[in-house]
């Protein structure tokens, strides 16, 4: 009896050690993959792009939004970005400035053109919808490695291309997601698919990144389609024009420049 108990305990300990060791290895590999992908996309210095966003409701009705986006790459912290809405007319001229941070909440300001007012806004409501789309502020913000806990899951092919599949859990307790499953293409060194799970652990949305091409030596997706499985709505972001390695002045990303 004692022998059997001891044997069972030894087996359980062995499984736990190997399993635990395997979990640690998966976490280490997951983090390595995230850092590799991050490093492969670094060095763009500055980006200017024109973006079109098409919102499709559950009945197939479409709404179009257009914006320009300028990003300044920061070495030690998250990037600074400035979006200006071009269409529709009721939001034209509205600008949003974001200073992303690796470990703190992002700093954000909005410029309201009718009254020429710059106001600070809270970035805490990350799960809020961006411009009525299926993209949340969290989805579009700078995806710093430090903002997640990464775990390697497996290797898998997507559309015939080799991918790492990792699970990442947001470290911010206010995130709208309990976890995300990311398929990172080994060639593009970028995500081709991300599944977003809500706070209850149910699949909420899937993002598909398509049309990859090299821009100034870096792979960038031409479009992201986000499908909400719960509401049956979808939104697509398409880059109409994109230029990397643009020389930008960091001063342009101060809040006092928003009304310029």
């Amino acid at each position, binding site marked *: 009896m004692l022998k059997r108990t001891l044997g069972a305990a030894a087996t359980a300990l062995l499984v736990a050690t190997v399993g635990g060791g395997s979990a640690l290895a998966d976490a280490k590999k997951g983090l390595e993959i995230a850092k590799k992908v991050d490093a492969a996309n670094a060095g763009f210095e500055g980006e200017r792009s024109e973006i079109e966003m098409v919102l499709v409701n559950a009945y197939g009705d479409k709404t179009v939004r257009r914006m320009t986006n300028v990003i300044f790459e920061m070495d030690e912290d998250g990037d600074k970005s400035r979006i200006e809405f071009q269409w529709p*007319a009721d939001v*034209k*001229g509205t600008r949003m400035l974001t200073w992303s941070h690796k470990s703190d*909440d992002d*700093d954000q300001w909005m410029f309201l*053109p*009718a*009254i*020429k*007012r*710059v*106001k*600070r*806004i*809270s970035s*805490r*409501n990350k799960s809020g919808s961006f411009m009525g789309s299926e993209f949340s502020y969290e989805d579009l913000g700078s995806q710093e490695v430090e903002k997640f806990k990464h775990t390697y899951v497996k290797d898998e092919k997507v559309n015939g291309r080799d991918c790492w599949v990792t699970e990442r859990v947001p470290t911010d307790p206010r995130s709208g997601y309990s976890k995300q499953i990311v398929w990172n293409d080994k060639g593009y060194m970028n995500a081709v698919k991300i599944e977003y799970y809500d706070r209850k652990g149910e699949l909420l949305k899937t993002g598909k990144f398509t049309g990859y091409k090299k821009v100034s030596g870096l792979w960038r997706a031409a479009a992201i389609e986000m499908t909400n499985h719960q509401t049956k709505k979808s939104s697509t972001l398409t880059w109409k024009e994109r230029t990397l390695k643009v020389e930008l002045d960091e*001063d342009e990303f*101060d*809040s*006092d420049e928003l*009304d*310029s």
Partner: protein
Amino acid sequence: MLRAFQLVIVAACVFLGTTSASAFDLKVKSKGEIRSETRYFLIDDDDPLTVDVNSAIAGRLELKTKIKKFKVVARGFARYDPTDLDRSAVFAEDAYVEYKQGKFRLRIGALLQNWTATEAFHPADIINARYLDSNIENQEKRGEPTIAVRYKFLDGNVELYYMPFFVEPIFPSAFSRQSFAPPGVAVDQVIAIQRGGNRVNDWEFTYQMGGRIQQTIGDADVSIHVISHIDRSTPLLVALEDGSPAVAYQPVIQYGGTYTQLFGGLITKVEAAYRQFYEPPGGRTEVGILPERPDFGQVAVGFE
């Protein structure tokens, strides 16, 4: 002087808005809005002279272009109110040329400034004469003729202003429920008293200057300013030499600032100003001896 300025603005708008701009290979960006407005006073004042229900069309147009390091901006506002034609108005909000070089920026022309941090009360937002018969929370503003020099440092800037002309507010019409005068009486004489006690009219030279510093410090946005100018917010009723009434504005020195701080998801906003009225020697002015005005301060606090 106003006539000349208006001619320059109209010429700039025509140039920017027509093919002249494209002939010089200029890219002109434009945006505008047009809206219908209705205003209804719930409590009737039982006065047949006043208008209790207003319906108006208002619009705004902005044109911008860039020529090398220069930027030209023209922005105007117009309101047409057929229920009270005297309430209709057209004026420039922005009409300036900007030059940028490194950390310096120079702007010359009519500028629309917004120094506010709060939503309903704006003690620190004192530049620009208001269109007083508009939305009380966010009144439209006339562009202030200004020479502004800005230097960027750290996460903000310091800006110095010289405003050479007194620009009077646009007062409510004689039939408006928002008028300060008795019904049927128009406020059509507005003057400013200069430091020496002499009076100036709309768009005449006067002494106004100031400075402002803005900085972002962590989660906070801070600004402080000192302005010596003709106060546009606390008028006096005076009698002119011919006995006719006029609204008079006096010179003040204002010390003020704004503070916005993020505490987690809560934004705290504070706006404060202290006004020190300048009394001419012996209290004597061109329109007689004015009553002493007490200096006062205002603070507005908000949470979002």
